[in-house]
């Protein structure tokens, strides 16, 4: 009972926060979403509404940090599925970003590798 009460108030606070930041997922009160059933077959636990709300807020924060225009954040969040939101919430950093960019660390590594294999002075003199 106590847990339920706590859960309710947490949900209300988070819902309010979400609505205030402008990306409320309009879900009809009480209705269990279709994705809950679709995810159920290969997930041990049901993804609770509050988890999705918290993940949305966190992913939105990370998108903004990565330079996404604030006005676009809500739209981008809305089209992500619940499992995708949880994935990004937990491991946005580990997700690869396709964009042809060579990681700086990678380039440094390449230079070091060449230096090691070919010999520092020679390769720099020849350029």
């Amino acid at each position, binding site marked *: 009972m106590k847990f339920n009460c706590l859960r309710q108030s947490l949900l209300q606070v988070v819902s309010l926060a979400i609505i205030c930041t402008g990306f409320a997922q309009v879900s009809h009160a009480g209705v269990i979403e279709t994705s809950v059933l679709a995810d159920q077959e290969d997930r041990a636990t049901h993804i609770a509404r509050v988890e999705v709300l918290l993940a949305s807020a966190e992913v939105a924060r990370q998108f903004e940090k990565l330079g996404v225009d604030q006005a676009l954040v809500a739209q981008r969040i809305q*089209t992500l*599925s619940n499992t995708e939101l949880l994935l990004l919430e937990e491991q946005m950093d580990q997700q690869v970003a396709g964009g042809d*960019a060579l990681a700086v660390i*990678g380039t440094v*590594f390449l230079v070091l590798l060449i230096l090691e294999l070919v010999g520092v002075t020679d390769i720099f003199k020849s350029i």
Partner: protein
Amino acid sequence: MPALFIFLSGCASIPPHIAELEARPASVELVDTPFFPQERYQCGPAALATAISSSGIAVDLQDLVDRVYLPGRQGSLQVEMLAATRSVGRLPYVIDGTLQALWNELAAGRPVVVLQNLGVAAIPRWHFAVVVGLDTERDAILLRSGVEQRRVTSLKTFLRTWRRSDYWGFIVLRPEELPIDVDRQRYQKAVAALEKAGHMEGAAVAWKVAINQWPGNPVALFGLGNIELSLGNDLEAEAYFRAIVELDAKSVAARNNLAIALARQGRFAEAMEELSIAGDNVSDPAIAAELADTEALIVEQSRDAKTPQ
């Protein structure tokens, strides 16, 4: 043993997938696939524009940039490529990572967006491109890639670069289309995500396709019920939820939503009865909490209905 296999296959000079082509299916090339040359770091939006416009929707490249580009990462994430596809009402479906699946989709007229690592593991260079053809005579892949309208890559090189993304690729389906090698669960999730993204009309079409493919599919029936609920068609919604309960009397989710459809028609006693049966079958505490929420909601609604305004 599996670890050894991974190690060995990782070292093999020819990826195992190439063996699939021994059957030598005919070459295929989707020559009419449009081309959107990419700007710096924006292979994601360009590949997406290619695949979406190929499915018959006019796209604005800048809209897609706004949808998938992450400035801080100088690129686009795989899940956002899928999400952006939903934003235009199309259904993204991640295909099996095999050459055969690739060929099957091409033969059905659908290009495949793939993620490649053009570098090596230590110096990655992640790149989205669109496979538009497979030349089985010359063992080559034909791509819309970067600023090249028709890039020809040897199959061997392509498979090496594709393997680094675990052979990740997806197609853009019109709601009435099914993938050639369809996995039921993956397809259900794809349609549920389209529904969640707010494209009810497209999702409804796709759920009907699913019922046609898998008669009595409870997730599809549930989706159709939810769409009717969201449109305010409580009678139609009731019929869908009842159809699920008839097939599976223990479906808690169906009874929960059936209760809502009934309560909206003012049939509160019947609604409470459904919730009570659902309560007897529930095992997941999170679902039990949902049922409690629904019950509270219905009690409130019935109280309001009795109170003269």
